[in-house]
């Protein structure tokens, strides 16, 4: 039992309260979340592989089939987002639905839908990258750095 917060100096109060929160706060079911993330994330990858193989069977080269598979997954994720299903899957799948390319598609389509009411330019156009923007920015910066390293240390 922690002692009465009121009698403590402000910094101590905050520390004691932090302790109290730790005792009460519901913890995430980590094992269950990891299991579902693995299962659903893995399932998305399996679907990707199946699509990839189908495109190769249709005569596309490895590189072409890869691009076609990515576009198809992006399309499917966008469709599911539009139908209001992707967030339901993500609720269970967690990181398993965020990490694959489908998560990226979802993070573009969701704000696009959300800000449609504010118009095409200042709504959709301006807000399209609210969530994907940082991923793009830091992804591109990382690519620069790797490119430079490659150039000098090749």
């Amino acid at each position, binding site marked *: 039992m922690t002692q*009465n917060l009121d009698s403590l100096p402000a910094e101590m109060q905050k520390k004691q309260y932090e302790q109290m929160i730790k005792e009460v706060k519901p913890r995430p079911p980590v094992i269950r979340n990891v299991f579902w993330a693995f299962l659903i994330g893995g399932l998305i990858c399996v679907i990707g592989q199946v699509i990839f193989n189908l495109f190769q069977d249709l005569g596309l080269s490895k590189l072409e089939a890869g691009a076609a598979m990515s576009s198809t997954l992006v399309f499917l994720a966008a469709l599911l987002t539009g139908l209001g299903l992707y967030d339901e899957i993500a609720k269970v799948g967690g990181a398993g639905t965020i990490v694959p390319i489908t998560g990226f598609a979802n993070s573009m389509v969701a704000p696009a839908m959300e800000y449609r009411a504010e118009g095409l330019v200042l709504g959709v156009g301006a807000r399209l990258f609210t969530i994907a923007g940082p991923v793009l920015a830091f992804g591109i910066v990382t690519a620069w750095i790797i490119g430079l390293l490659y150039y000098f240390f090749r």
Partner: protein
Amino acid sequence: MAAPKKNGQQTVWFQNPPVILATATIVGPKEGQGPLAQTFDKILDDNYYGEQTWEKAERRMLLEVMQMAMERAGLTPQSFDFMLAGDLLNQIISANFVARDLGIPFLGLYGACSTMFESMTVGAMLIDGGFAEYVLIGSSSHYATAERQYRFPTEQGVQRPLYNTWTVTGAAAMVLARQGQGPRVTHATIGKVIDLGQGDPMDMPAAMAPAAADTIARHLLDTGRKPDYYDLFVTGDLGVYGRELAVKLMQQKGYDLASRYKDCGAIIYSPEQDTHAGGSGCACVAVVTCGYLLQEIKAGRIKRMFGVATGALLSPTSTQQGETIPAIAHGVVIEA
């Protein structure tokens, strides 16, 4: 010398306690599937309520409860001296736009999710101070409008943490009057802004629980009352786990409330609805008070209650700049 209608540091008492003449509530479909479904006046079929945007839907809910409450009291907008209202949206647009439609002299108020009780407090003061005969009070929130403003786009795939609460879609209105039949507002305790260093915007219960405990303890000190004076203590939107925090904080202050203490956020949804920690938002305390709690008072099952509406006074900007979350709680005594 102390002000004549002030009790202690933060409590005011009303010489002629204003009467709650009528109330009205509307909630969204999710709330309509919850355990309190029977206590609401109207349940929406979908979150858009036939409008183009969620903001418009929220506004329409607020306008309709205001009209419904006026009608039940047998009054028209012209009868009202003031309208007091607020909501969660930037610049309280729901309340502002409804005030435009109703044409009643308007004071817009913002206390985040505590706005309904803040409005009741100011309204009761206006009436008992002799400035008003009738005051119209209302507040609203909408899951989708709040999510997009404070957190993520609605269709964004995120896994909400288990301690997160769900913003209630709904609106409630109340007619306060100087005379008439009905439950009365006898005291109000105005909260101080409390911040115990919590900064996670997904965890507002932790930020708000100390404010609720502070206001309850202050009210008991100011009035010299014992907890058993009240049949029920109610907090606004701490949810299941925030309620536990408040119970613990109150225990530290030397009060045991657990047996006579409910939280609106903890009772508005059932656990099967998977909202995690319960409900929050301006509408949470508003629809539960104007629906369930006042019905219990009218049925004689509650004689005296002390309600405390909690509000987290953050903005998305303050959170992004790394500020902690200041919180407030306003208390109102309602007696049969």
